[in-house]
């Protein structure tokens, strides 16, 4: 089950965050910094899955942007890994001609007010995602 979905840039600024389980606002900042720190410390030769406390982080890097998904123990890591890519592909399709891909943050910040309609569930027809779509 997906616990949270983050888009963070290399400087550690959160561009988009979506929590599927309640986390206190002040704890979110702490969690996000720790999460991005552990992602940045990984090299290309290391795998894209990190154990963090009692859940797992799955991350994917697109240029200067990291997309990190926190899941619980029962989740299939590879499925989530591909799900991230699917998400990015959909974004790309939706806002066609947005290149290069590191402009994504702009889109995301533009999206933020309408996050509700743009949570991973509603936009993914093709994916029929594995998320706990709300």
């Amino acid at each position, binding site marked *: 089950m997906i616990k949270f979905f983050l888009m963070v840039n290399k400087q550690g600024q959160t561009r988009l965050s979506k929590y599927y389980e309640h986390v206190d606002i002040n704890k979110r900042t702490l969690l996000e910094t720790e999460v991005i720190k552990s992602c940045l410390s990984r090299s290309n*030769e*290391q*795998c*894209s*899955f*990190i*154990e963090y*406390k*009692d859940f797992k982080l799955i991350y994917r890097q697109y240029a200067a942007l990291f997309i990190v998904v926190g899941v619980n123990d029962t989740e*299939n*890591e*590879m*499925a989530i*890994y*591909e*799900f991230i890519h*699917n998400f990015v592909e959909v974004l790309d399709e939706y806002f066609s001609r947005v290149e290069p891909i590191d402009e994504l943050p702009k889109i995301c910040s533009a999206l933020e007010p309408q996050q*509700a*309609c743009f*949570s991973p*569930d*509603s936009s993914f*027809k*093709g*994916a*029929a*995602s*594995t998320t*706990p*779509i*709300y």
Partner: protein
Amino acid sequence: MLYQDLQSTNLVEVCMALTVVSQIFPREMIPAVLPLIEDKLQHSKEIIRRKAVLALYKFHLIAPNQVQHIHIKFRKALCDRDVGVMAASLHIYLRMIKENSSGYKDLTGSFVTILKQVVGGKLPVDFNYHSVPAPWLQIQLLRILGLLGKDDQRTSELMYDVLDESLRRAELNHNVTYAILFECVHTVYSIYPKSELLEKAAKCIGKFVLSPKINLKYLGLKALTYVIQQDPTLALQHQMTIIECLDHPDPIIKRETLELLYRITNAQNVTVIVQKMLEYLHQSKEEYVIVNLVGKIAELAEKYAPDNAWFIQTMNAVFSVGGDVMHPDIPNNFLRLLAEGFDDETEDQQLRLYAVQSYLTLLDMENVFYPQRFLQVMSWVLGEYSYLLDKETPAEVIAKLYKLLMNDSVSSETKTWLIAAVTKLTPQAHSSDTVERLIHEFTISLDTCMRQHAFELKHLHENVELMKSLLPVDRSCEDLAVDASLSFLDGFVAEGLSQGAAPYKPHHQRQEEKLSQEKVLNFEPYGLSFSSSGFTGRQSPAGISLGSDISGNSAETGLKETNSLKLEGIKKLWGKEGYLPKKESKTGDESGALPIPQESIMENVDQAITKKDQSQVLTQSKEEKEKQLLASSLFVGLGSESTVNLLGKADTVSHKFRRKSKVKEAKSGETTSTHNMTCSSFSSLSNVAYEDDYYLNTLHDRGDKELKTFSLNSELLDSESLTELPLVEKFSNCSLSTPSLFADNSMEIFHPPQSTAASVAKESSLASPFLEETTEYIHSNAMEICNNETISVSSYKIWKDDCLLMVWSVTNKSGLELKSANLEIFPVENFKVTEQPGCCLPVTEAESTRSFQYSVQIEKPFTEEILSGFISYHMMDTHSAQLEFSVNLSLLDFIRPLKISSEDFGKLWLSFANDVKQNVKMSESQAALPSALKTLQQKLRLHIIEIIGNEGLLACQLLPSIPCLLHCRVYADVLALWFRSSCSTLPDYLLYQCQKVMEGS
């Protein structure tokens, strides 16, 4: 707003509203919008249907009870012609099947068909992702199938074909197909095994593990970790890869590999694996990893330790690294292991001796800081077992402990452990200056707890003979009989009271007072320092002063007090929460059942490895040879277990350090032998049964052993007679007293010569024949619920075995005839109310009574509900009138004792998933278990199955037939209640009732 949007005809608005509902929605408001959302399930637009399903899924997550009634509609969603709606409904099904797979077996066919269609590419193309058809949908379906087919051959057979197909189709070399494959393998190994499929799945794992891509390798290791629990031989196939992963630069991979090794540990490879784990442990800094790993190492060490020295050293490493973050069970279990010992007495002594020696050497080292927990373990062991030492005298040990005591970095909790150890050692040391110094030092300590201990020690020290008898050597496992009521202090209490001391107030009362007026004295430290001891829960004005005034008492009182305190201290070690029988259920004599003649196979494996060694020896570099060596040490003994693997996941592990269950030897001799037989046949089923029995046996035996001082009241077990008598008496009292009251009042203007209650009594014996039979059941007093000048209505409850019978009796107070009196009940959600036949007399004559009977069945649990209705009647054919009334029904009206045996209790207990635990303070009147249980029996109609020592088993059922089990346990004045039931909400409600009862009385 939301409500409006949901009703809107604008698609976008409805869409938004549904999205908002599924994102943020308060639980309490669900009933308000639920019907609207249910309607949306039939909406013509698929996106609305899908969002409605998702909203219901959210509701199911936060309040499963409220959407129970629409399960049938989910089935419709599952068969929806739109794939999106179907996929959305899978989330709900996955969740529900996880909770209760047996309820959805009939859907297996549907899931299989859906998966077949998906795999066969029958979905629209826009569901494809990189030309793989709906991969996430496939994964979801595979998961559901895995849950459904678990341990169920018939259901599993339905899915073999489609799984085979999935494995075959997922050939494409894309990440997402690997994700599907992984799920497939998982499912194949979860369901009832089929050798063909297993083979194919095993081959798939090879693809993962050997892949150069790191992510796939990780996935492969994860799959392997799962799979080798079923089939350890697979690890042999991939041993070289595993070794490589063990030295992988990526710590995550390493960690996963250790996880894998943890699952294949056995007595032969334990040293190597634990060593690897310890290496990793020393490198990692993250607390979560440490806690997790330390627990695993401790478990392995306990299970498979090859010798004493290794065991103690490993545990030392565990304690010093895990320190204060590890789970408290680890030191507790370790100490229990030492104390209870194993089968062989001499070996026990050696182990203890070794532990003592190693701790002494550790303490000798200068400038080393040990975690507090480790020091506590050390001090306990030294206190108990220093007598085993030849060379060093107790005085020397005391000197070492003293040095620690004076150390500032030691916490005060540890200091109390240390001083307890010194106290234990003092009788053995003939005369010791250190002890005197220590007493001197700590009797003026600012820490009250330490001062208390120092005074105890001081007084004991003055009377060496008494001290020796009080603190015997090596008796830590024996139980002492405790006078829990501390009656020997009664004299002291009376004296105190007569001198004007305030009467004792129990802890919770004091806390309440503290809350009500902030500035009250703080008694906290006492409550804490004696934690579970007798001080808090007892009636004694000395509660405050006893600590320092103990010397003022007669020597005997003081000493006895210490005795009970000591005991509490030691008891505490074994876990307040510790549910002993359960923890032990894995140990015990299972190992006796393990077939041993497998060494030959192991040797074969060894030989095979060495042969390989030889054949490759020419081409191998030295490094590789090392790896081979490591491999052979890691995977030794794995082949042996392959005989077991297909026969379920029964835990057939042999515990090297078997806990000697001396308790049960005498009693369950015969049962054990039969157990051995069943076990050796290795059917998982019999193993389950075995564990049941075992659990019960231990429970039983513990009870026999422990505290026989509780004399069980035999009538306690007879539930009905107790509860019924007083009630019936009351009833007759009531019916007798009321008429006389009326007579006194001389209110002849009101016609009724008899009170309603009396008339009920009269009627129950005379008027209607079917009431006679009901009198054998318990019933409540009749209560007038409404009246006017012509009629008065009273009601009472009859608690029949199978339902609740509500009787309303209508008394016609007027002198006129009543025609067609009718009683109607308003429908209530939670009840099913049916009228009993035989009470439809059309006419109620003047001044007579007639009654209406309704049987009430409960639909779902609640705490309290109101049942209301009205009476309508005609008077003299003209004038019609209505009278409304309402009756309170409580959950207790539907609780009946469930009479089962302890064996059945054990079986049911294990089969129920919903449990609730809570500690409840008992009032003084019920301080002992039997009286507390009696209260529960009387007030809640629970059936007492058995009382064993300080534990009790009770059972009840909620009509019509939802069983609920209760396990009680008493510590001091706290009653730990543990409910289990097949219904998810029932335990909560019952707990609430229990709390009410326990606090109320």
